[in-house]
């Protein structure tokens, strides 16, 4: 699971109102792949992101490096900054771990890089 995806996921456990962002726990296997840097895509995605959730998730994985607390102004022209964002969005990948709902504590496992968001019959 990449952090771009994590940034868009929320807990859908019945009754939960504060299910975002999901906490990344027990990340026993995390990979950092090399993915072609595409500044246009990163620039397009930044306005759609919840920035603090991204920074927090990167921190949870020990992959934050020097990602700032706040978005840098005029980031469209800041290649250095865009490369940092690109790295945490697309290159960092949780292979084994789980996503925990911050309100209910319910955990969604991630195995082989794939999250399982299925709820049981009684949770729906």
């Amino acid at each position, binding site marked *: 699971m*990449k952090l*771009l995806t994590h940034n868009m996921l929320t807990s859908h456990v019945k009754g939960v109102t504060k299910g975002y962002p999901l906490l990344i726990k027990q990340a026993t296997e995390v990979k950092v792949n090399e993915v072609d840097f595409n500044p*246009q895509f990163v620039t397009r995605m930044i306005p759609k992101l919840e920035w603090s959730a991204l920074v927090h998730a990167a921190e949870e994985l020990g992959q934050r490096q020097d990602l700032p607390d706040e978005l840098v102004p005029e980031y469209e022209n800041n290649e250095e900054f865009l490369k940092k964002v690109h790295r945490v969005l697309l290159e960092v990948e949780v292979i084994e771990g789980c996503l925990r709902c911050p309100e209910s504590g319910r955990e969604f496992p991630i195995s082989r890089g*794939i999250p399982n*968001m*299925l*709820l049981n019959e009684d949770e*729906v």
Partner: protein
Amino acid sequence: MRSLSGTLFHSSVSNRTYFESATNMATSHSRSCLQYLLHLAQDNLDFRLPSPFWCLDGLSEEDVSSVMSRSVCAKSAFELWGHGKTHSELRTSLLSYPSENMSPFMQKDSTYRINVYTFNKTLEFADRIKRIDAMEFLPFEGTVSLKSPQHCFCLLEDYGTDPNNIPEHPNYIYFGRWIADGQRELIRSHSVKNRHFIGNTSMESGLSFIMANHAKVSENDLVFDPFVGTGSLLVACSHFRAYVCGMDIDYNTIHGRGRSSRKDQKWRGPDENIRANLRQYGTEEMYVDVMVSDASKPVWRKAALFDAIITDPPYGIRESTRRTGSHKDVTRSPDVFYAESHVPVSQAYHLSDIFTDLYSEEMVPLHPCLRLISNCEQTLSSHTSRRLITMEKIKNPEELDSLAHLADPCFSPYQGHNAFREKYFSGQNKRCGKEDSKTVVNGE
């Protein structure tokens, strides 16, 4: 002059054409008064105007090239210089074509060749040569080069579409300068037959590219498939340089495990999954994520996250429809792109069932935030067809909108998510059942 400004796809609802949306993607600042001829392939006929020849004007060459860089339905595009019902009419037409439009391509130091294409008829070699020679009245000043000419001119003769009734003389003749070929090679290069990871319901390559085009998938888009299966639609989208993600309720399909869909293979191999499919075509860079999830229980936070949602939901035949939770609720996601329809053949149906089973436009799922762009029917068998529905988001959702579709009468014929499955199989006993054993792979 057959100038067809109607819809490329049969759409009884919208006037907006697929071609229009494709040219909207092409930036064009100059509109010439030149005419262009598209030659369309003889497949997906339900999606197309009856004739394989389509004349267009009000476009620039850049627009045409742009469309051809995406289309898997169009074989070739030409700058139309002349046309007519007979060779005599063609000649007259060509003689009145402005010479200043011809001369840039007829220069002394340039090379050219003339091709003759006859549709629905085979011509003897000698007859081809005769026709090429007959075009020499045009002011060609360059030299003929058969191997790699700078300019290619084509004489196209239309002998109709009925192979059992080929006329002696062509119904219509066109002459023009070749501009570009379409992307039909993608159908072969991305054939499901050669794909590493397939399932029982993998979408055939041609149609997956058509769907990506309907959704105007562009470079740097983020695309989502909520019923991703083996990722066929994502493969097509990644080819157009969009970043892709998907989900499916089936754990084994998402993880690439379990029984193989190939007849000579029992179990899936280690490199059989969606990511591997993208890797096969060199687009692994576009892979974002897939997950195991129930599309009817959204897991995304409420924001405009995706540029396009492209999907082929289960019909309940080869894969039965499933959902988590109680079977009591009947809601359907408004993002469904394929809506079931069929014409029942069995007389065991009650009259009221027949009226609700027959397709009507009211059955197309509606949502106040989505505008219907096109509705293309594809016949699958004597008693079933499916529709490719394309909708465009026109406004952001507000609280009340999300409940709007439940009140819609179009949902009442579908009692339970396996209703279509039951009707499909109940009719099967009356026929020999040949269609059912065909796989999507064979359908290519």
